[in-house]
């Protein structure tokens, strides 16, 4: 069976490594991006099955990335999960309005992350 590909976006190298470790360990292919702009470039270049993105990032934040990805035909039905330290209601409402599939607050638990991804990626 072909491996599913996940685009993991975070400006923190340690978080990217933790996410990649968790996802690769569960058999996913992982593409890493350092910010929204980098993610947008990679999203245009690769076909991914799910996007997991932080919000507070330099150059382009996660909400802008979400907004731009949802405008692309190929990303209209792709699950986009927000993984962020922001757990405030206002930000969550904005994310939901912009088309986020789900919201995970950091620090994430590997098992919960894999459960959520397993639910939405199929």
């Amino acid at each position: 069976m072909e491996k599913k590909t996940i685009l993991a976006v975070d400006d923190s190298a340690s978080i990217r490594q933790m996410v990649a470790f968790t996802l690769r360990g569960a058999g996913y292919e992982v593409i890493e991006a350092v910010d929204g702009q980098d993610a947008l470039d990679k999203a245009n270049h690769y076909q991914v099955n799910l996007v997991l993105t932080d919000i507070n990032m330099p150059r382009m934040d996660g909400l802008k990335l979400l907004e731009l990805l949802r405008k692309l035909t190929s990303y209209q039905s792709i699950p986009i999960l927000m993984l962020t330290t922001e757990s405030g209601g206002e930000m969550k409402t904005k994310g939901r309005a912009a088309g986020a599939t789900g919201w995970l607050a950091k620090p994430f638990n590997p098992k919960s992350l894999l459960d959520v991804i397993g639910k939405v990626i199929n």
Partner: protein
Amino acid sequence: MITLDEKKKRMFLALAGGVLVLTGFQFYRFLTVDGSILQAMSIMISIVLIAMLLKLSKTSYRGEISACQQRDVVDGNALYEGFSLDSETPRNKEVAEYLANIKDELGQAEQLVNDAVTNLVVNFGYISELTSSQRDMVLTVEKLAMTDDNAEVVKLLRRQMMMAKKIERELETTVTSMQFGDLVVQLLKHTARQINTLDSVLQHIDQPNIQEKIINQSDDTRNKISNVKVKMKKITQTRPVLQQGLQSSEVDLF
């Protein structure tokens, strides 16, 4: 009472008047008596007056330039348009140094956290790889030893396998704990932003003639101070990290 600004303004006007009179006089002399000593003297005086005018205008605007440099601190918004800032008062210098020290220390803390996390991530990766290799090795040895004669060895290998699984579970917990670096760095950055705001507010409040400005330009100044308060409140309220500990947080599917 004549303020420092008013004194400068009056001196500026007087000097400008002097320059105008002298220039007119020179022009008149130029038209009538070429090369006289009087003309040479008046030219010299004009040069001195122009130099004084330039110096005076520099002094008046230096404070405003400093204020402009401070403006971008709060979310890139200009909060203090129209304020002139004398950042060279002893108290302002003291406050600026104090806040600069705090910002330096926050930067140092951020650097230390980043270094610690980078090292931990490297160690984590290494332990994780070793655990994975060990598990594969135990599985292979278990297959090779699967005979009746090796029942005891197989038993030991299974215990070994259980230990490997426990280590892997511990590593998963570590994934959650190791995200502390990102949370701490975001909190430090937020604190630095708040200090920057406080810095600009203090710089503007700590002007030598702020009380007079408040009295003379009451509405304008009060509005500006009120805007600053709103911005400060907004920055304080938009905390990037609300988590109090490293327990894994909630998950919401929309």
